């Protein structure tokens, strides 16, 4: 739900990080928060359990300088990946303008990725949306670990339509900004 305010000359857009529990969504947003300049970022909000598992969402507002007189703001959200929190996930998806699906490359998390992607389709369906309607990218995270599935195999199962895909090691920041930049650009392109 992008909001364009012609009077205060602001554009707000919403980008959601989706994916199974522990795949690294919060890690992505935390890395971005640590690296961008203070003028670019607002306050990072995380609603998590004591175990650092996202309970409701993380939220980080990022702001571009003025472009043709308009101030553009990206609202980044992560959903809680644990299956149990589906009601919260659905709420966060409301009004989404762009989605990043973070997949966990570990073999042991193969089924969890498929499950979560299926859940994403279902929850979008409840808002009469399809993945094809929204700027979308997939991130294969945790490429640093030993027992990871090949990108080719992951593509076949999780990304048969070949949406933009990025390999990442979110703990080190590898691929984090590449993924964000790609989605941020296609969301703005979608406005015009």
């Amino acid at each position, binding site marked *: *739900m*992008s*909001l*364009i*305010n*012609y*009077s*205060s000359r602001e554009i*707000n857009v*919403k980008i959601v990080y989706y994916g199974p529990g522990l795949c690294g969504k919060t890690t992505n947003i935390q890395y*971005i928060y640590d*690296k*961008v*300049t203070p003028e*670019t970022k*607002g*306050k*990072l*909000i995380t*609603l998590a359990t004591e175990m650092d598992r996202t309970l*409701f*969402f993380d*939220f980080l*507002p*990022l702001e*571009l*300088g003025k*472009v*043709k007189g*308009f101030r*553009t*703001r990206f*609202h980044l*959200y992560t959903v809680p990946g644990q299956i149990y929190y589906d*009601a*919260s996930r659905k*709420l*966060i998806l*409301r*009004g989404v303008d762009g989605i990043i699906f973070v997949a966990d490359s570990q073999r042991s998390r193969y089924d969890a990725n498929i499950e979560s992607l299926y859940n994403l389709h279902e929850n979008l369906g409840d*808002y*009469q*949306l399809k993945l094809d309607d929204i700027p979308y990218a997939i991130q294969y995270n945790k490429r640093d670990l030993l027992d990871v599935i090949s990108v080719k195999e992951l593509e076949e199962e999780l990304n048969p339509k070949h949406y933009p895909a990025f390999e990442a090691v979110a703990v080190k*920041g590898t691929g*984090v*900004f590449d993924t*964000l*930049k790609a989605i*941020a*650009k296609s969301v*703005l*392109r979608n*406005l*015009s």
Partner: protein
Amino acid sequence: MVRTNWKVFEEDYWAINTILQELLKNSNSSSVLLLDKTGQLISSLGEPPQFDLHSFASLCAADFEANAQLAVLIGEKDFSTLYHQGSNESMYLARVEQNIILVILFDKRTTLGLVRLRAKKALDNLETVIRRLYGKLEYENEENTEFNEEFVQQAEVEIDSLFTD
């Protein structure tokens, strides 16, 4: 229906702010905010807050929407208002039309009764403005001359320079 995209035009913005300004004054509150239910801030008036407004707005929307879901679970259609009482600062949240939320922050300088009373009038007026705005959106043709190729290219340069390690 969930509105997927929307816009606020100059005259509506001023109409909204006039209503909020009056509410701020006649309810004696510290600040008033208007946001959409996805947490995007439309306008805010009053004492400049000491916190990040956009994060605050996102939490307000989440709070309100989570409560709306609770309402459905116990068989209510909605909780159209919420009240959080603190020892110094309190908050009153109310739905304006299905997509918009009004948030009022107030302290001991006023009372819940007065805030609620003034909010009621403001909600009616806001609803009229919002409906008019929606009407315009339906008739507006989708040509968006301001967000052309030039805008996108300049924005991309900004993205490349700001979103980096």
